[in-house]
């Protein structure tokens, strides 16, 4: 937990974000701010609307109402690839790698928006430098998540935990400013979860990121996050530093359960 001295500038502003599915309001009038460089946790019971909120933020699901702005630019209403171009990138709770492609290719593909080569420059081989850059960066990212010795293997063959790591590498390849991680530790054992904490911090520092993370593993959240928001039945019931959130009776009742 890094004690925050001066509040850093707000990069993400969510205002009254709401999403209904038929009669169900999965995300209900949610507003919050995320500051630059912070690691912002999102917790809450199953079905509280956390993943849905991520979907609203990344353009995969259009909100019923409400807005999200990133550094003053409106994000809601944009198609997912436009959101990615703005600098928001994510991983998926139900891992969505390009399963039949190699790990290396997965990471190369994600550099799409940061490269330019069109059909003809690609075909005529005019983009060699760019290709070389893509290649190098892909290897670097695989190194980072420790998968470079399996770069040529199909992503679908990786075990659950390794797939999660590869997804993070892929998300980083889009050169995001904000990284959204949906249950990155699911499927990792306790030791690995510990490593994940330092890994996420390292990534944040190295790439100068703002990170939002959904996670059910409480020790990890408490350890990792600068601030934590709690969703319950689609509504935000608490936001604050980990310690105070953990003590909040509403959170204990809805989520943590009494000891």
């Amino acid at each position, binding site marked *: 937990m890094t004690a925050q001295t001066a509040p850093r500038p707000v990069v993400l502003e969510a205002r009254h974000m709401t999403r209904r599915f038929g009669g169900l309001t999965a995300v209900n009038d949610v507003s919050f701010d995320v500051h630059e460089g912070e690691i912002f946790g999102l917790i809450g019971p199953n079905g509280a609307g956390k993943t849905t909120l991520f979907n609203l933020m990344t353009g995969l699901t259009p909100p019923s109402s409400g807005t999200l702005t990133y550094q003053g630019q409106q994000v809601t209403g944009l198609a997912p690839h436009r959101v990615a171009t703005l600098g928001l990138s994510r991983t998926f709770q139900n891992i969505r790698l390009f399963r039949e492609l190699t790990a290396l290719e997965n990471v190369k593909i994600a550099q799409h928006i940061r490269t330019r080569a069109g059909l003809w420059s690609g075909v005529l081989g005019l983009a060699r430098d760019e290709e070389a850059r893509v290649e190098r960066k892909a290897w670097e990212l695989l190194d980072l998540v420790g998968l470079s010795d399996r770069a040529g293997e199909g992503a679908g063959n990786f075990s659950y935990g390794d797939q999660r790591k590869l997804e993070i590498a892929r998300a980083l390849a889009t050169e995001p400013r904000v990284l959204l991680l949906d249950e990155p530790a699911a499927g990792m054992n*306790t030791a690995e979860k510990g490593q994940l904490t330092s890994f996420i911090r390292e990534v944040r520092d190295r790439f100068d990121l703002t990170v939002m993370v959904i996670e059910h593993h409480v020790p990890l959240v408490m350890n990792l996050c600068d601030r934590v928001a709690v969703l319950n039945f689609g509504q935000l019931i608490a936001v604050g530093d980990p310690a105070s959130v953990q003590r909040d009776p509403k959170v204990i009742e809805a989520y943590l359960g009494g000891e």
Partner: protein
Amino acid sequence: MLEIERLSVNYGAIQAVRDLSLHVDEGEIVTLIGANGAGKTTTLRAVSRMLRPVAGSLRFGGRDITRIPADEAVKIGIAQSPEGRQVLARQSVQDNLELGAYTRNDGAGVRQDIERMYGRFPRLGERRSQLAGTLSGGEQQMLAIARALMSRPKLLLLDEPSLGLAPIIVREIFDIIRELNEQGTTILLVEQNAKLAMQASHRTYVLEAGQLTFSGPSAELINDERVLHAYLGG
């Protein structure tokens, strides 16, 4: 009840499990732990007959089940809550549960059991007619576990049941595991939350790169230096 002898399973050229032998006695809870890619899921899938081993044998209740089809395994009392949940996305929650009881012929009992599941997982009760594919990750996990219970198995295979569940529900799951076991169900459990699993189980096997490294009573292993270091984040 379950005896695995010198089991080897390959994916193409990749050897996922090598020469693995273990056994689960009737009435036991046995935990299988190991790092990512150690072969835990592969082992469970071999037992539920979703994968064909290249070598070794499987016996269940004295019967050789190495070659029976997967649906037959369910009929003789093996149920699995699989990795990745595998709920039937286009069927309702209720239909998923009913299909979980496909091998049973007691309509009334099935209905009763379904109500019981809704009691344990109120979330599912609220969502009974929702398509399973639109459930949240954790809700699907609950459904996968509940569905496996619906066949009233003799041997229950749970692959990372706590995955994606809120702490409050994780506790509920382990309560259920204990209860079921008290009622006589044998359980083979794969868990990443090794501590929790070992606390709940009688014995533990540790897998590494497709091979067995340690095994023993959970209570002993939980204090073992090496296990502590590698899997419990100690």
